[in-house]
């Protein structure tokens, strides 16, 4: 009882403080750049922060080492680390949050950021950016802004990432097929993929069919001046989506893309099941930084290119973020830890491109100079090249995106399996996705 009463008092006090700080912030906002302030020193009492992230073992190791670096600099701060694989991560995070045990700081991606920010789970980091505890001045502006939702800074980007087509470079050479290149149109790309099946002795298809991949659909729409999400609705018309499904139905018919059952395996998202790993196709539609992960699962040399079409449809996208729980009792400290993780060159070197290309440009440069792993170098070179081609960033996907993303998989598969026509499926997708977003 006593405890509950206490926490209520604190939350009221926090509310009061929040209300008081609004006019102050408003005052700061008036003069463009907020005045440089020094944040109040942090308490040196022993404190333990809970940290939660998804990833593989290598990431766990490098994250733990990074946090140890922080402890070395701030001996009163220790960490309680929890991590797990991607699958089930968000179920767990949601359950922890619902139970009032949200981790002090946690990893999140732009699929879930709106879900959490719009529901007020994440702490608004704007005041910390203003008072200097959180320094994003070395970030590309579009990148840190890609953590803002409804004007609140909900997460700090750990790094930059771009959707990328990861392809089997070695097999291209063996089959005597030119490597695919960034800038190819979708039609050219499918034409490039078509002869692979015959040339490989009916063993390998040219390309994965990405019609269930929301990133691919999004890119394709942006290349036509449209968006996947607009005003919290699907930004495409039924005709657009029909055309998208038809494009790939045709690719399957021509033998450029595999049959539905093979596509289905890869649609699950598991790196080990990607067709470029299982050898069933030359390409997989993933994230560019996943090339390091994918490379670990195959002996073939891999390459990476942008999604087909004009690469200006891409933008500096946050690979993932760190967010602080609004309910955390150690907010200031948690923000300080994030500030350390994203701005420390030592952490940058520990992480390489694992959480995307370091968001801090100075760190990014320092990391680039120390890379030795050829795959990481490829990823870095690709992302650096892309940085010059980026277009305007859209807003972060809205609440309901997670469901819309899952709906696209189910509905695109119904076309792939021949259970629905492209037009019916497009109609169903728009209707159901809009319901999920609304």
């Amino acid at each position, binding site marked *: 009882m006593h405890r509950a009463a206490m926490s209520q008092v604190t939350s009221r006090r926090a509310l009061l403080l929040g209300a008081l700080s609004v006019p102050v912030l408003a005052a700061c906002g008036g003069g463009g750049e907020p005045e440089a302030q020094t944040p109040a020193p942090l308490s040196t009492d022993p404190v333990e922060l809970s940290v939660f992230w998804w990833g593989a073992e290598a990431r766990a190791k490098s994250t733990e080492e990074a946090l140890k670096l922080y402890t070395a600099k701030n001996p009163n701060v220790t960490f309680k680390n929890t991590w797990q694989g991607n*699958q*089930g991560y*968000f*179920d767990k995070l*949601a*359950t922890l*949050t*619902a139970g009032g045990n949200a981790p002090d700081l946690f990893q999140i991606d732009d699929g879930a950021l709106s*879900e*959490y920010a719009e*529901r*007020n*789970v994440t702490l608004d980091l704007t005041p910390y950016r203003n008072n200097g505890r959180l320094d994003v001045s070395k970030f590309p502006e579009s990148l840190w802004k890609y953590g803002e939702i409804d004007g609140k800074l909900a997460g700090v980007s750990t790094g930059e990432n771009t959707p990328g087509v990861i392809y089997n470079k070695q097999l291209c050479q063996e089959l005597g097929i030119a490597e695919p290149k960034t800038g190819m149109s979708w039609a050219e790309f499918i034409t490039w993929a078509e002869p692979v099946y015959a040339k490989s002795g009916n063993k390998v298809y040219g390309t994965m069919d990405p019609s269930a991949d929301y990133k691919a659909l999004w890119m394709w729409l942006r290349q036509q001046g449209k968006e996947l999400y607009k005003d919290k609705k699907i930004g495409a018309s039924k005709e657009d989506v029909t055309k998208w499904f038809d494009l790939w139905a045709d690719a399957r018919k021509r033998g450029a893309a595999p049959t*539905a*059952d*093979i596509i*289905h*395996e890869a*649609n*699950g998202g*598991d790196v080990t099941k990607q067709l470029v790993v299982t050898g069933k196709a030359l390409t997989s539609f993933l994230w560019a930084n996943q090339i390091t992960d994918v490379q670990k699962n195959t002996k073939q040399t891999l390459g990476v290119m942008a999604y087909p079409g004009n690469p200006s449809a891409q933008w500096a996208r946050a690979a993932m973020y760190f967010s602080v729980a609004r309910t955390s009792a150690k907010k200031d400290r948690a923000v300080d830890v994030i500030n350390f993780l994203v701005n420390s060159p030592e952490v940058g070197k520990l992480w390489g491109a694992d959480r995307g290309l370091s968001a801090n440009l100075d760190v990014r440069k320092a990391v680039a100079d120390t890379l030795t792993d050829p795959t990481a170098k490829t990823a870095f070179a690709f992302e650096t090249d892309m940085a010059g081609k980026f277009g305007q960033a859209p807003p972060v996907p809205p609440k309901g995106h*997670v*469901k819309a993303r*899952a709906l696209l*998989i*189910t509905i695109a*598969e*119904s076309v792939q*399996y021949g*259970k629905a026509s492209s037009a019916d499926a497009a109609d169903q997708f728009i209707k*159901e996705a809009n*319901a*999920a977003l609304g």
Partner: protein
Amino acid sequence: MPRSVKGSSRTREGVAGYVFLSPWLIGLMGITAIPMLGSLVLSFTSYDLLSPWEDLEFVGVRNYVRMFTEDPHYLHAVTVTVVFAVVAVPLKLGAALGVALLLNREQRFTGIFRGLFYLPSLLGGSVALALVWRAMWAKDGAVNTILGLDGPNWINEPDYALGTLVMLAIWQFGAPMVIFLAGLKQIPNELYEAASVDGANRWRSFWHITLPGLSPVIFFNLVLETINGFQGFTSAYVVSGGTGGPVDSTLMYTLYLYQSGFTDYEMGYASAMAWVFLVAIAIITAVMFSTGKFWVHYGDGSS
């Protein structure tokens, strides 16, 4: 006076009874009853797992209406679950009864066989088993190889995926089999002897002695397995990677419920689904009990 003495000793016994019951009562209240009531309340709200409690909105029966009028995936999940239960439960019970009859005869190694047939049930709802299942039904998996088929990856075919889950359920017939075995032992041998003296063949004695004698056990297994069948979750979740795919073909009711609650953050809606589910299972069970009197024979003469 004697009365009040009796009364107080009764009270004292009552208190002692509750004290002994308390671990169970606390468990029932804390883990089952109170959360259940909580979910009933939540089913009338827009609870989304993440929002603070202040934002909780009561939406009346909105969630219940939505289920039946606006959500094709829900109705689809109901169909998948009913098909699964209707196909898997009788086949599983049939397999259990058949094997129980074979193992009922006292022969060498019967004990070992009983153990072996029970084994799959021990592995039961385990995740590991579902993963093995996934591998077995793959394109180059054990099933296609052993049958010499150039078959598809059965789990990736919307038309067959549910079938593989049915097979998995049937394969785990050990638990009802053991209960059938116990039931078979209860049927007096004299009945069979009398029947054979009267010249009944094996089929007739099975039909007129074994089945009626076994009917309470069949009834028990039927009720239990039906409830189990409707609740199938683990195998569907693991085999489909949590999606219920391909194309919702393995979207069992409980899996969709889980997705709604934990993936789509619609816990209010999921709670409503859970309550509809509970009521549906209660009705099905009640119907079974009401038909039971027509075909379940208890040895004491009451039918």
